[in-house]
């Protein structure tokens, strides 16, 4: 009975979170576009010049992001593997931090750093540098570079894992048998790295083609169109064309699914066969490239955010007389919409972290049993990785705002929680599955044999054993929910804002200081809450 209930609950959760919006999109994409009486929006895209331009913009931006991020990630991985500096965990943390900064914030920060009145020109003697950088930033290549800065840490993680998985003896054998250092690398390292490089490239392509925030901020000035902004435009700008938005969404989704299916087999073997190897030679000069990456990926953008949050007027620049706490006072004042946005984000993210992990644990238990149904559940649970947030948002509008759907979800902040839960489900289930894989089945069997019911075993054995993994997964889900932008923009009910839409809105309206102040408060408050929560939960 409890097994049947577990199955039904998992199907319901995945059905509502994944299948319903996807089904709604497919149905809508098969309707005629707005202004057309007949035909199918999906087919009508074939003659839509704007769509074709957006498609080429998306492919270009994603391709350039791959082109920029792979060499950076590879270089950093090789440096830290072969010639790490002293205190390498610290330097590694600096490499990973840019992934934690939402890409739209990096784009905003760099737009503040560049330009004729940007901080770079204010602080340096190179008068032309700011303008040159601005021209680069507001171009297809600039958009690709911002995404590359955000995603290089992912490339680094994948390549570093591949290097650690490799067998150092292969390299030694090549050298002993007459290969040069480069020849040994080609023989012993490169074959291991190629699948990881391909996987990393696909992941960067997938994430960049789904990105909304960066092109929304930069594409307009760059004269570029991409699919994600076209979809948002078709749902927001008159005349609203939901069939067209769905059709473009379906194309973007198909692209994502294709890339995802190419990606999955490449990382299947890349799971924790860490080999013991002799300690690497430590050199001081490897901190130079790492510092340069940290500078452009993290230090300069964060410094810009903090500086702007403390400036009275942007054009006056970094002068003592121009500093003020006004933006912080404004954001933290009792009636501030910024504070309310922060509260809403914290509440929703905490809710999603708890319920998302609980649902993921249910689904992971089902997947662990194996069989066809388990494979289907696994596929559905990881599918949101391939569905861009903007597409998911359109699907949710179509499903929850459908005339036949009387549930009071659309127009209520809870719809944001549903969207966050869908987007973060693949991460949640990954943590739950990894945790479950670490518990020997005998621990649970021992619980059952010695008198524990299935529920008792889950509560008294499984959850306590999984606890660190569950807390880790909840932390990731919380952090991802806090920074989600596009679904929040498209689904937030009237009068409700979350932290990402507040920052984005303020930037678009030119009240940048308030947005940046809330960014700083958001980063610190969520770090503080997560730190305290993790400390308290993991101490148990």
């Amino acid at each position: 009975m409890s097994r049947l209930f577990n199955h039904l609950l998992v199907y319901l959760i995945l059905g509502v979170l994944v299948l319903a919006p996807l089904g709604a999109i497919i149905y809508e994409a098969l309707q005629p576009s707005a202004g057309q009486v007949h035909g199918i929006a999906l087919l009508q895209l074939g003659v839509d010049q704007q769509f074709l331009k957006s498609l080429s913009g998306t492919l270009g931006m994603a391709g350039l992001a791959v082109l920029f991020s792979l060499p950076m990630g590879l270089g950093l991985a090789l440096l830290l593997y072969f010639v790490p500096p002293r205190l390498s965990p610290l330097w590694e943390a600096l490499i990973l931090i840019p992934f934690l900064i939402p890409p739209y914030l990096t784009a905003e920060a760099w737009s503040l750093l560049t330009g004729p009145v940007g901080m770079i020109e204010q602080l340096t003697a190179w008068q032309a540098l700011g303008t040159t950088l601005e021209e680069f930033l507001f171009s297809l290549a600039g958009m690709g570079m911002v995404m590359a800065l955000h995603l290089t840490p992912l490339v680094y993680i994948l390549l570093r894992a591949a290097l650690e998985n490799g067998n150092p003896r292969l390299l030694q054998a090549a050298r002993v048998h007459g290969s040069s250092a480069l020849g040994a690398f080609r023989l012993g390292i490169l074959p291991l790295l190629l699948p990881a490089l391909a996987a990393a490239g696909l992941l960067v392509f997938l994430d960049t083609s789904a990105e909304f925030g960066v092109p929304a901020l930069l594409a307009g000035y760059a004269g570029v169109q991409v699919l994600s902004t076209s979809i948002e435009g078709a749902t927001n700008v008159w005349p609203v064309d939901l069939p067209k938005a769905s059709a473009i969404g379906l194309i973007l989704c198909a692209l994502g699914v294709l890339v995802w299916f190419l990606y999955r087999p490449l990382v299947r073997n890349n799971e924790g066969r860490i080999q013991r190897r002799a300690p690497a030679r430590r050199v001081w000069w490897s901190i130079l490239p790492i510092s340069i990456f940290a500078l452009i990926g993290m230090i300069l953008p964060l410094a810009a955010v903090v500086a702007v949050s403390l400036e009275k007027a942007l054009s006056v620049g970094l002068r003592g007389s121009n500093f003020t706490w006004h933006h912080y006072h404004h954001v933290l004042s009792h009636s501030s919409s910024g504070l309310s946005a922060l509260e809403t984000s914290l509440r929703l993210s905490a809710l999603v972290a708890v319920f998302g992990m609980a649902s993921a644990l249910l689904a992971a238990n089902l997947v662990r049993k194996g069989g066809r149904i388990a494979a289907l559940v696994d596929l559905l649970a990881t599918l949101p990785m391939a569905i861009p947030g903007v597409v998911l948002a359109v699907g949710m509008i179509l499903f929850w705002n459908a005339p036949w759907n009387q549930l009071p979800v659309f127009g209520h902040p809870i719809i944001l929680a549903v969207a966050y839960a869908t987007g973060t489900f693949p991460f949640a289930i990954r943590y739950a599955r990894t945790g479950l894989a670490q518990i020997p089945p005998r621990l649970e069997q021992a619980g059952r044999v010695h008198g524990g019911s299935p529920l008792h075993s889950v509560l008294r054995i499984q959850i306590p054993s999984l606890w660190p993994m569950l807390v880790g997964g909840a932390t990731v889900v919380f952090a991802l929910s806090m920074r989600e932008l596009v679904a929040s923009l498209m689904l937030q009910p009237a009068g409700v804002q979350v932290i990402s839409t507040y920052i984005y809105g303020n930037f678009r309206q030119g009240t940048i200081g308030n947005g940046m102040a809330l960014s700083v408060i958001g980063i610190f408050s969520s770090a503080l809450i997560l730190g305290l929560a993790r400390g308290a939960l993991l101490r148990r």
Partner: protein
Amino acid sequence: MPSDAPAGLQIEGLQVELGGRPILADVHLQQAAGSYACLLGESGSGKSTLLAVIAGLLRPQRGTISVHGQQVNGDGIFIAPERRQIGMVFQDAALWPHLTVLKNVLYPLRARRQAVDKTRALALLERMAIPAAAARRRPHELSGGQQQRVAIARAIIAKPRIVLLDEPLSALDHGVRENLREFLHELFAEEGITALHVTHDPSEAFYLGHRVGVLNAGHLEQWDSPESLYQQPASLVVARLGGSVRALHVPVLQHAGKQALIHWEGRRWPVPASAGLNGATRATLLLRPNDLEIDKAPSDAPEATVRHAHWHEGRYLLTLQATDGQEFLAQSRRGDLGPRRWHLRPDHGWCIPVQSSANDR
């Protein structure tokens, strides 16, 4: 055991398939209540699967299982593991790392909503040579042997109807294993708990088991006393568990009751035989080294060639080749190669039917 008392464990026609592959085929066994029995088998023979099925962790395709007269499996009945009143000791102890030693031991009482008797648990731990101070520790702070003792305490604290032990000693060092083996023997004899112990170590099974079963590729080849298993093995696989043995194909001249008259190397030999021989004209003769006399063989005894000799347990173990090409083993004080006379000792050797499953291998 009185004939009307229910068996501690009764299994009838048990059949298990996993992924379409047969794991257990038509297993029948009956174990007396309060007795200690062992199941011997190599890796993949199905012995752990059998324990999982008895525990209710796996559902069989066919067959019935009864524990102390209560049917727990088969004929549309399936009792969940937690309601079978079973204790189990796993190969790797399977203690819950997030609970203290004491809480691990008390778990079966809590889970079954019985009175949580800490005094009894501590007394049980003391009996297992686990000091009271260690009861507050986490399992990883104990040695492998201590962990396994805690697992045994956990398995018996709720007074189960049967305790299943799945290779509980195999992960331990030799010294600890011997020590724990003796401990298990005494403990279960005193407590009178029915226990089924799975192992791949024949010496462990013969030391502990009043009855020993041999599983081979999912078939229960024999379920008997250790003595019968050694002297009257049902197959070559069973015979090998008792030590070095060779199987020879011989013609049978006559078979009556427990005796067969065979013809081999130009002589007629009366040999103990399985009732299953049943008038067959050919048989498999199982010979152990001590079934043959070689140092004091009569001068007219048949001759064989020593092909190999090595020093083994205080004597030479010879590999001899008969004139028909078949090989057999014998013990001798001399290790020289070449021709030697040999003689089959009276009432030694054991004849089984050629079609016995293991003889095919």
